[in-house]
């Protein structure tokens, strides 16, 4: 069996595509697990699941100890050899704990998953974006986590047949108490879906100057502002939903304009799949130029207003 789980429905649908492909190749059935969300079951079947297990539990908030124990039970009962788990923060801590409980191998954040020499093989980015590690599982169970947008969901097929099984779990009880859940200050930006992104980095002297980037972004369709780590994580000039990089968001817009960003490999790892990359930096030696299609060397305080005006003239 190839098992799929994420607490994110969209991500589950994406993983089902890969699971169906592996299932076909290995002649295994595909199981999707949902904890508490019976209403997702039909869609999971239409997108490739042969069996949906609806885990019924009194615990509706994600608690890793309890969710791990549910998945541990399911994997043992159904003898799942492969588990694909959505690589968000909940999924990653769950996958690693589950791997320990099952004495299983686990590879995180895979961007490719395939069978080579009859072995499950994965690829992921390591060394801070400098290389790709190709790893192979030597024995089951095998746990792989996959980030969002690596695969597209299969188109819904209303003729695909599957079974829904409801199961009650009163497994492990977590001694952890959740006291509060607070949404982070967010500006409602979705950089991952943006077609055009204008990004800012340490080249900006103060918070107010970021308007130079927003003005350019406003002229361009997409209107999305991104930033590198220091702007979101250290200076907090922008909320973390703008943050592009290895630990931030990974983006692939048609056009990416990096302003005052030095081009640390961690940032490149978040935007290297962009269509066209433009860099503006005053340092001709800045690393960002190596990763750019076009670059202008100069003072962004001079360049950005001029560029914004010129583009306004061109596309209105």
């Amino acid at each position: 069996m190839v098992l799929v789980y994420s607490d994110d429905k969209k991500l589950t649908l994406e993983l089902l595509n890969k699971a169906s492909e592996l299932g076909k190749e290995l002649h295994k059935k595909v199981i999707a697990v949902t904890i508490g969300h019976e209403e997702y079951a039909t869609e999971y079947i239409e997108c490739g699941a042969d069996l949906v297990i609806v885990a019924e539990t009194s615990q509706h908030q994600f608690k890793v100890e309890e969710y791990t124990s549910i998945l541990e039970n399911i994997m043992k009962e159904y003898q799942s050899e492969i588990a694909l788990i959505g690589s968000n923060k909940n999924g990653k801590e769950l996958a690693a704990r589950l791997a320990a409980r099952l004495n299983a191998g686990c590879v995180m954040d895979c961007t490719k998953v395939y069978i080579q020499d009859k072995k499950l093989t994965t690829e992921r980015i390591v060394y801070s974006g400098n290389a790709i590690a190709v790893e192979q599982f030597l024995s089951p169970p095998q746990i792989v986590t996959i980030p969002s947008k690596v695969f597209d969901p299969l188109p819904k097929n209303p003729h695909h047949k599957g079974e829904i099984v409801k199961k009650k779990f009163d497994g492990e009880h977590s001694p952890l108490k959740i006291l509060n859940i607070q949404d982070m200050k967010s500006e409602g930006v979705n950089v991952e879906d943006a077609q055009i992104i204008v990004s800012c980095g340490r080249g900006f002297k103060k918070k107010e100057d970021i308007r130079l980037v927003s003005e350019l972004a406003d002229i361009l369709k997409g209107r999305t502002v991104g930033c590198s780590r220091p702007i979101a994580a250290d200076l907090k000039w922008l909320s973390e939903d703008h943050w592009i990089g290895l630990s931030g968001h990974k983006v692939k817009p048609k056009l990416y304009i990096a302003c005052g960003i030095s081009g640390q490999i961690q940032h490149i790892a978040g935007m290297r799949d962009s269509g066209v990359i433009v860099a503006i930096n005053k340092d001709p030696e800045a690393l960002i130029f190596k990763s750019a299609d076009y670059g202008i060397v100069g003072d962004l305080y001079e360049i950005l207003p001029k560029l914004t005006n010129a583009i306004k003239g061109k596309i209105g």
Partner: protein
Amino acid sequence: MNIIVCAKQVVDVAEIKVDSSTKKPILAGVPQKISDMDKNALEEAIKIKEKHGGKITVITVGSPDAKERMKELLAMGADEGVLIPTPEHADYHVIAHLLAGAIKKKGTYDMILCGEASIDMFSGQMGPRIAGLLNIPQITYAQTLTVEKNKVTSERNLGEKTVTVESPFPVLITMTKESNQPRLPSLMAILASSSKPIHDWSVDSVLTEVLIPKIKTIDIKGIPMQRKNIIYQDDLDQSIGKLIDELTKVGVLR
């Protein structure tokens, strides 16, 4: 408060150069250091010890030269170190069993602190794996810790959400890079730390059975980056004009 900190010696990823023809990283000769977030974990442990007293033990699985780096952790404020050699064949499964085995051998502990991930591989597996093997609760991505007599409260950074949780002891916690600023040891502290012990524990002394890895790395590939690298650095107005022409030509300005 007995605190165990797990620390890993890694290559300094900021110093990695890429071979221009194969695009593969050149790892030989890259300086080694203790992974950044493991230092955040130790810093947090020291702060807790300063307030509540106790003992801090740093455990590392690594090569013999990791001892040099561990001395830095003792100078920061850890009380003792334990170094276990890396077995010839090892993966996360094997290393997690070694660390959990060493923690069990150590005996009593209230908290185990780890970095949220190591800077070289950035998997973040080790903390949750150790918690899973010891069957204790885990708090990952901790931004803050408030320790009281019988419990710890923590704000966890989950990106779009902050989740505040409370746990009894023992508990395993992984710290983020933003959680604190690891201290630089003073010269006095460095000199004083020379008397602190680093114990060598063999693999056999912490494991009862021989463990076989579940995963094998078959290749470390380079990442191809093919970009046009057209850089304008003369007259600004001309540069902007040329850039807009190019962007229009490739069809991204419409």
